Structure formats: C-alpha cells, structure tokens
C-alpha cells in the first residue's frame, strides 16, 4: 500500500495484504500461465482430433483440496488481526477518548475537558475538521453521525469505520509517527462528499496539551 502506515496494527494489515498478494499472485501466474501455454500448445492442427476425456476424479479432488486449504488457511490466519483491530477496544482508563461527529460535509471533534470524561460540560469543541492526538498513545474515537452515513477513513492509520446516525460506534488506533495526515469520507453522503477532508495531526504529548489549552482558551 503506497500510503505509509503509522499505526501499530497498520503493519498487521500490510503484512496480510502482502501474504494474500503472494498467494493470489502465485495462483494468478499458475492459471494464466497454464491458459496461455494450453492455447499455444493445443491450437488447431488439421486432421488431429482432441483427446477424448470427460474428466478425472483424482485431479478434481486435488484442485478442490489445495485451494480449499489455502483459503481456509488465509481465513484462520487473519482472524487474529481482525480481533485485534475491531473486536478488542483498549481500556478507556489508559486511552484518550475523543468524540467525532460527522455531519454533511464536515467532522466535529470534541475533546474531554479536565475531568477526562466526555459528555460533561467542560468538554472542548475543537475546530471543524481538525483533530490532534498525542503520539504513541491509544486513542478511542467515538464516531457518530448527525444526518446521513459517513465513513471515517484515515489511510495512514489503516482505519475505516462508517459513521451511522443513531448508532455511535467506537474505533481505536495508536499513532507511532508525528506528522499531519488526511482524513477522508468514503461513504457517499451527498454532493459535498468529496470535500469532507479533515486533518489528523499527531503531535508530541507536550505540544498536544499546549494545543488543547490554546483551543480551550478561544
């Protein structure tokens, strides 16, 4: 994947992508190679009749079991990664919990105030489409939508989750590299869908605290 991964489980996704690329690449070369070879080798020559055969049980069993095992192996291998990314959320105590609400054509991030809990009146409304998180710290995003379906996609973090109105959904990530990354909306949400660009800034904890304080001061 061309976008460099900066999240902890990012390389899980990349390595799985690579493994599948190798497995399917092998299958691709094998089948297309055989196809081209057969087309050349067995092209029409006058007078010769094709080989009269209706099938062969052994080879059928062979090419049922081999792909079956490969596919089953892939299935088993990647359940771990799925569980890590999607099924187990880190404990809220040790993670920074922020709420992001998607609305037609913008993202509204909200940070917990001093009390560290969302939904209290000391929450801080960050500016539209600007999200900042400290580096090397687990972040839980409580994703919600206000009107239609949106989808919170951060290519660099290998994170994508639909925001469904009426059903808040949580996702987590841990960024490992400082910098500014783009957030896109990948679920069609109307004519401004292509313009729902937001910025995710990963900063040192000190800078993050300073930024948060400055936002609160506004």
């Amino acid at each position: 994947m061309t976008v460099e991964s900066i999240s902890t489980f990012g390389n899980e996704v990349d390595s799985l992508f690579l493994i599948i690329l190798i497995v399917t690449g092998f299958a691709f070369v094998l089948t297309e190679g055989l196809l081209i070879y057969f087309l050349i080798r067995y092209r029409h020559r006058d007078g010769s009749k094709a080989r009269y055969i209706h099938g062969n049980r052994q080879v059928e069993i062979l090419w049922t079991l081999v792909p079956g095992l490969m596919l089953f192996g892939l299935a088993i291998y990647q359940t771990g990664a799925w569980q890590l990314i999607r099924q187990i959320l880190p404990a809220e105590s040790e993670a920074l919990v922020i709420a992001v609400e998607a609305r037609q054509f913008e993202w509204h991030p909200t940070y917990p105030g001093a009390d560290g809990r969302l939904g209290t009146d000391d929450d801080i409304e960050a500016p539209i489409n600007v999200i900042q998180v400290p580096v090397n710290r687990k972040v839980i995003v409580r994703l919600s939508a206000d009107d239609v379906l949106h989808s919170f996609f951060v290519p660099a973090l290998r994170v994508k989750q639909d925001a469904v109105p009426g059903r808040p959904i949580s996702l987590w990530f841990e960024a490992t590299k400082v910098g500014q990354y783009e957030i896109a909306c990948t679920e069609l949400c109307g004519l401004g869908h292509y313009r729902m660009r937001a910025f995710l800034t990963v900063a040192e904890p000190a800078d993050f605290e300073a930024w948060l304080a400055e936002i609160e001061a506004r």
Partner: protein
Amino acid sequence: MSSHQISRWMCIMLFLFAAACGGGGEGGAVEDDEAGASAVVDPATAGRVSGTINFTGTAPEPQLIQMDAEPVCLEQYDEGPFTQDVVVNDNGTLANVFIYVKSGLEELEFSTPTEPAVLDQQACRYHPHVLGIQTNQTLIIRNSDPFLHNIHPQPVNSRPFNISQPTQDMETERSFPAAEIMIPVSCDVHSWMSAYVGVVDHPYFDVTGDDGAFELPNLPPGEYEIEAWHEFYGAQTMNVTVGEGESVETEFTYEGE
C-alpha cells in the same frame, strides 16, 4: 433543488418514448413582469425617509470563527475572523440591520429591477452578510473561493434550493418568487458561513453599513409602517407619514444588556 438537465447528446435515443417529461426547467422559474401597470413615482411629489440605527448598552463579545479547516481562507484574515451577528460601529450605530416598508404600499405594483443583486462568497464568508432583493429579481451567487461552496438558502414561502459551486468565479442565478423577511442562508461545507436575504415586492429597503445610516428615497406620499430587522436583537416597527416632497428623519434604537 438545482435542476440538472442532461445534455441533448444524451437525448438522441433510438427508443421513442412518451415519458411525461417533468418540467426540468431552470431553477426558480423567472416569471414575466407582473400583469398590472408598474407604478411610476412622480419625482416632484416623492418624499424620503432616512435615519440611523442607534445602539446603546454593551453588545455581546464577537466570537472568533475557527476557520482552521480552510487554511486558504484563514490566511486572508490578519486578525482572526469574527462572527458578524452583532456588529457595532464606532459611532455607536448598528450595522447589518435590514430596513424596509412593511405596509402602506399594498395597492401599488412595482416592476422587477433588471440589474441583478449579487451575493459573493469570498474568504469563506458571504458578502454582504445581510442582503435585500425584490421578488423575482435575479440574484447572482458568485463563488470567489478556489474550492466548493454549497449555498443552501431555506426560504419558507418559496422553494428551498441547494446548489454547489465547485470552481472559482462560478456564478449561478436564482430568484425568489415570494416575499419573505429574512431567508437564512448557510453553506453545507462551511457551517460557520451565514447570511440573510430579505425579499420584498417593492424597491423600498436598505441595509445599514458601517455608518449605521439608512435611506428610503422617492417614496410616494402616504402613511407607512417601517420595520427595522436585526438577526440578534429582533425587529422594531415605526409609523411614518410622508408628505409631498417631504424628507422624514427618524431613528431606531436597540439596547444591548
């Protein structure tokens, strides 16, 4: 809803069909002039009403608009852009107040002005913030920013529309068939942008600028009710009688807390 009509090229169809082609006409069809003869105001006898909108007390602090999402716009402001809902001028007057003749002109018919009103979107703000326009007068909506603005006026008496302008210097024309005092206008892509459009069916309206003054020239003589409307402090009305060729001075006063 902006009416979208596929091009003729797509319409060359082998298939003959008797589809009930819905009226895919221009948005906000511009009707022809009113049937009645348009009233011609005799300049000799015409009077005028003018005055200022004073403001006393303390106005609420203008908040900073957090425009970080659009760095292209943010750079164009040296000191942080502030909200425009309450703008008190240095001379103690109030800006962005819409003044118009509320009643007294019912029996007269006025022709629709030909030159269009302009609502520009520049540096992620609407210019002007408050705009007056006559019914069926063409409103040119211009996008002077190099990216998408999605203007979404929501009138009650006419059909709301929601049009997108993705490129710079793009202009779209619309008009409002029905009079309405203060149509809220917002942008779906930048929720801090807001403007108000006052639609009246006669040419007697004005918006106070940074001098807080307004003027309603060549009014035919008669009894009128003038209303001043402000988005934060609401509306005030006043009865005025204008004699022949008389110039009436008046003023409205809004108190902050």
